[in-house]
């Protein structure tokens, strides 16, 4: 006789989801979303390569702008640009993760999960965990690839680790927001349709130039743009060193946005489940 715990209890003796089962489920779903991501090089490679390409391009095009009034004191443009590169890569990687959730909804895999006694929150967190891990990996890759070209991190090894955590949190925050779109629309196309919007938001932020060098409406928009604050948190670690203030900005800003975004995504998940 097979020792299958649940089967032995068939007839319905099990009560509520145990926390440990929910965590096992979330971990298994996170593993699935991670495996799925890395088995699609066509999705992974561009979100690794394009930000690096932009960074190199920016370095050669805007390298001399570091002497502009208002530009912080940096060793090179790449040192300044590193935070923007990380944010850019993580933003696009998060769209990929959310699009995969929408695909699950479209092709019925989501229903497969719902037909099983799966923790509903686990379905969302499992998917986001994969994106978050990918965000951390992207951050590490960007730092280590750009470092020999001048993208130094004043905060040293602890700063790099904090940047990786920050990159993961940004990925979680953006992934949760994009997942809300996926859950609301159930359409991978709709999620991918946010890509140009993110691109515009990125360019209207302080990802490529400090807000101090901007003027007029551009400066106002950048000041209102949450992406500016995500970038500047990371940049603080790059430029200021491993200070409490820099670390707090790098970690707490994306964490706060992630908490709000997770609340929105969870609300969208409940809304979708109510419609069923």
């Amino acid at each position, binding site marked *: 006789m097979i020792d299958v715990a649940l089967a032995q209890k*068939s*007839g319905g003796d099990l009560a509520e989801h145990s926390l440990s089962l929910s965590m096992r489920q979330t971990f298994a779903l996170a593993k699935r979303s991670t*495996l799925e991501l890395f088995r699609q090089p066509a999705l992974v490679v561009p979100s690794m390569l394009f930000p690096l390409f932009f960074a190199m391009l920016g370095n050669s095009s805007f390298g001399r702008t570091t002497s502009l009034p208002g530009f912080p004191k940096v060793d090179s443009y790449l040192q300044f640009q590193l935070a923007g590169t990380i944010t850019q890569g993580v933003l696009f990687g998060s769209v990929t993760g959310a699009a995969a959730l929408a695909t699950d909804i479209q092709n019925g895999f989501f229903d497969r999960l719902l037909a099983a006694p799966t923790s509903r929150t686990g379905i969302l967190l499992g998917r986001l965990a994969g994106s978050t891990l990918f965000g951390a990996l992207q951050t590490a890759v960007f730092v280590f690839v750009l470092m020999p070209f001048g993208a130094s991190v004043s905060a040293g090894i602890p700063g790099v680790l904090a940047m990786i955590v920050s990159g993961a949190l940004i990925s979680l925050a953006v992934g949760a927001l994009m997942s809300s779109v996926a859950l609301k629309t159930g359409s991978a196309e709709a999620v991918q349709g946010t890509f140009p919007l993110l691109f515009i938001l990125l360019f209207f932020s302080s990802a490529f130039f400090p807000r101090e060098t901007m003027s007029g409406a551009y400066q106002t928009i950048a000041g209102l743009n949450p992406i500016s604050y995500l970038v500047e948190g990371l940049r603080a670690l790059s430029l200021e060193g491993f200070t409490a203030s820099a670390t707090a900005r790098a970690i707490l800003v994306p964490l706060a946005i992630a908490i709000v975004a997770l609340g929105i995504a969870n609300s969208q998940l409940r809304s979708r489940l109510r419609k069923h």
Partner: protein
Amino acid sequence: MSESPIIAIDLVRHFGDVQAVKGINLEIKEGEIFGFLGPNGAGKSTAVRMLTTLLRPTSGTARVAGYDVVNQADMVRRNIGVALQDAAIDPLMTGAELLALQAVLYGIPATSLKKRSDELLERVGLTAAARRRVSTYSGGMRRRLDLALSLIHQPKVLFLDEPTTGLDPMSRLTLWEEVRRLNKDGTTVMLTTQYLEEADQLADRIAIIDHGRIVREGKPADLKASIGAPTLIIKIHADQNERAKSVLSTFGELRPGVEGEIGVGLQGGATQVADVVRKLDEAGVHLQHLEINEPSLDDVFAEATGYRLEGSDNAPPAGDNGLRDNGTVEPLTKKSRWGRKQRR
């Protein structure tokens, strides 16, 4: 006496103005294979989605595996296996990985996972393909994996939503065998299908659903019997037609056949064939060919709905509830009520 594993009472589901399911009542007994038969858009998948907790009923109640599908949905999920036609299997994962994931979802301990997974893979003939990505599987292999996934927790109640749609005949037969084996082991199976032959082959009882309502329910044999007598068809020389008709008319109502053939509805059933042959012989009628055709589920379906599934047993009319394209259905004719051979 224990409660039947699937009970639905006045189950209704609306999607805006469209009434997909208009109040169905079902009771499926323990150990049955129950066939839920209907064309696309008839409401069978909507009904199954309500019974498997994927869709809330607009009204009515249903209990599955002893639990209410709305108020005890999680308990229902723990006790049923579900293989949905439109629920994709992740093509980027391997069969073994998907079984491992499914096992975790059902709380199966890691210590039992490998043994259970290996047993299921062997059962559905996928041991050799277990480490391959699903994207490399054929349609039949995916369906067998789907079945294995739905069995990971050894459910007593199994929902199979169009399990053989799109499969080649060999794969279909393999899956049928597996369903029979599962049922023999005590699993209650609710099978939705648009294939009359599938329902006929597998189901102990069937329900025909059309436009959101159950229009016939019963054992396939009883339903076919309700259509009437089997048709005996004989082929003879044309100059013996009148003598043959005279003999045949004593056994039941004459029915027109194709040219050169005479049909009769045997009121006394198929056991009268020997008597018919003897009487024809005594009358000097020499038979060239003889066949007897029992009424089919095709006829039951036609009788119940007023149309036939297009292309006989296999292709249903397209469309959704209330939205059916009437151009795709074959209208019921008097001739078509007589059994499948009359039509072919």
